[in-house]
């Protein structure tokens, strides 16, 4: 559920539920494709049956086509999709072990479960072996760790390593898949010694292959990706919001919230970390403007029920942060009017006595009295660092989306 949960469309607590449904679907398809038969699976190695290769290539190509187009249309944010990091050594060693296990046992991890479910005893033994392996790995983890975490490469993409563009790579991959389908069929026929010309009723895949290549060609020649995605607010809307002044919060209101230690509002300090370390408003968190769109802050900004107040020294950077957040579609976002300078001006540059000429103006009187109260409150050092006594732990996207153990097929 990668794009849905981090984007806030689906509650993270439902994650496992969806995983269960997808798991059922995956298992069903594996079974239907005949992957519960180790004879079929091992066929790839002996050249008499390439159905495994075809099914996985088909699944890969279908997913790729869907993803590239959905990403192009702005329906899926590719940044949110978790990609397994590459550890070169564990990939090599794991690949070798997996290959041997595959050929000896006749299953790969996923298919062994499918086969065990339909009652195959060898698959159950295979799973037992897998658990044994897991146990050994877990027990001697400290010994394995250097290999396991050796040669970390981050998340490289094949097309980057090849110096190709993403579009051309997608095109070639689709083409390669189709070629692979044809060649594997020829190899199969040779191994099985059948003359394919005798089979007139053999299914004809020209039409889907043709459509796939048309799609990939269209993708190749699509203009550059649209800059905005569906959930973004238009520039007109953003400017209208900004001009309405409804999203500007006055110093008095901020002071009120601070001295009452109200929990409704989270201050977001958009200055750089250095300035923020020196001073932050009580209960503020620091999100430097540069990092506003980083994934780790997404959950804070996305919370619709939490009032968020951007501030900087003046108003400029807070306004910029607000503009970006408003465009990104976040709501309940506000700007501290005048920034910290404005706030300090209002609170600390007031006269001790009530100005004479404001007789009868009760609002001004109350405002003045209140600000004096605030001033003393601050000068006495009563402001506390943490406004919210029980702050909810912020769930970061990383916590949500890292699946444990990838498990090939």
């Amino acid at each position: 559920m990668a794009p849905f949960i981090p984007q806030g469309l689906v509650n993270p607590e439902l994650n496992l539920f969806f995983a269960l449904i997808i798991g059922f679907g995956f298992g069903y398809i594996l079974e239907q494709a005949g992957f519960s038969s180790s004879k079929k699976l091992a066929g790839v190695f002996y050249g008499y049956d390439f159905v495994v290769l075809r099914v996985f290539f088909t699944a890969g190509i279908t997913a790729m086509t869907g993803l590239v187009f959905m990403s192009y249309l702005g329906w899926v944010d590719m940044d949110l999709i978790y990609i397994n990091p590459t550890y070169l050594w564990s990939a090599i060693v794991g690949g070798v072990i997996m290959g041997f296990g595959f050929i000896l046992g006749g299953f790969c991890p996923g298919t062994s479960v499918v086969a065990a479910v339909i009652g195959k005893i060898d698959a159950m033994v295979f799973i037992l072996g897998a658990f044994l392996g897991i146990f050994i790995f877990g027990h001697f983890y400290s010994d394995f760790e250097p290999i396991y975490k050796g040669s970390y490469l981050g998340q490289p993409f094949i097309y980057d390593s090849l110096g190709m563009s993403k579009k051309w790579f997608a095109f070639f991959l689709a083409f390669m898949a189709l070629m692979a389908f044809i060649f594997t069929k020829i190899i199969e026929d040779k191994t099985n010694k059948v003359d394919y010309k005798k089979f007139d009723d053999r299914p004809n895949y020209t039409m889907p292959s043709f459509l796939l290549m048309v799609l990939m060609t269209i993708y190749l020649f699509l203009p550059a990706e649209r800059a905005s995605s569906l959930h973004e607010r238009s520039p007109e809307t953003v400017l209208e919001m900004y001009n309405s002044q409804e999203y500007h919060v006055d110093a008095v209101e901020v002071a009120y919230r601070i001295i009452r230690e109200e929990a409704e509002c989270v201050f977001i300090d958009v200055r750089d970390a250095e300035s923020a370390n020196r001073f932050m408003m009580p209960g503020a968190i620091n999100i430097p403007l540069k990092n506003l769109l980083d994934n780790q802050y997404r959950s804070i900004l996305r919370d619709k029920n939490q009032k968020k107040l951007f501030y900087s020294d003046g108003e400029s950077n807070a306004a910029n942060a607000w503009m970006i957040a408003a465009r990104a579609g976040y709501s309940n976002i506000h700007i501290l009017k005048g920034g910290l300078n404005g706030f300090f001006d209002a609170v600390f540059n007031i006269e001790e006595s009530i100005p004479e000429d404001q007789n009868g103006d009760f609002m001004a009187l109350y405002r003045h009295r209140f600000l004096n109260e605030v001033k003393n409150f601050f000068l006495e050092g009563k402001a506390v660092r943490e406004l919210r006594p029980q702050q909810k732990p912020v769930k970061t996207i990383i916590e949500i989306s890292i699946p444990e153990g990838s498990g090939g097929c």
Partner: protein
Amino acid sequence: MAIKNLNNSAFLFFLVIILALVFHWFTTKSYKTNKKDVLNEITNESSIMPFAELNDIINSERIKDFIFVDIRTEEEFEEGHIEGSVNVPFNDILSKKSKKVFKKDKTKVIIANKESDAHVARTTLVGNGFENILVLSGNYSMVIKHVIEKFNPAYGYYSEDKAKFDYPRYIRIGSSVSSSDAASTTKETKITVSGGC
């Protein structure tokens, strides 16, 4: 039978993508630059023009490469403006007239009553694909006072978005969490007054 189903579903898949693309092309295009690039552009230090630089420019040949765009209201512009500046009121920042101005090949410098308005205008314009736009730090009255009338080097790097106060001197934050907190450690260290402008 199976192949017919496959053909049908492949065709359906194809059709859905094509329809989505067609729909995509006909919907209004709102932005031309994605938000990450906008953020990079506006946080770029060199996208802000301090008074010192402005002073250098107006006293040199380089002024030909710049357009000063005044985004105050028409009335304010009429009352007085920097010589050679163009008026595009803030509310018309998305209008055709504004597009004409910001499409020009020169470096555009935005001047406003409030620095934040200039930033908001610039962020909007960058999102709409315009390039080479700078924000003049400070505001119109400051420019007039400290650059146009007589250049005051003390204000050479003035910005509304710089701290005017030495905050920790005013608000002492009692730490309810722990002493390892960054804010509480700064309390003990002596801090020299930074002096905003």
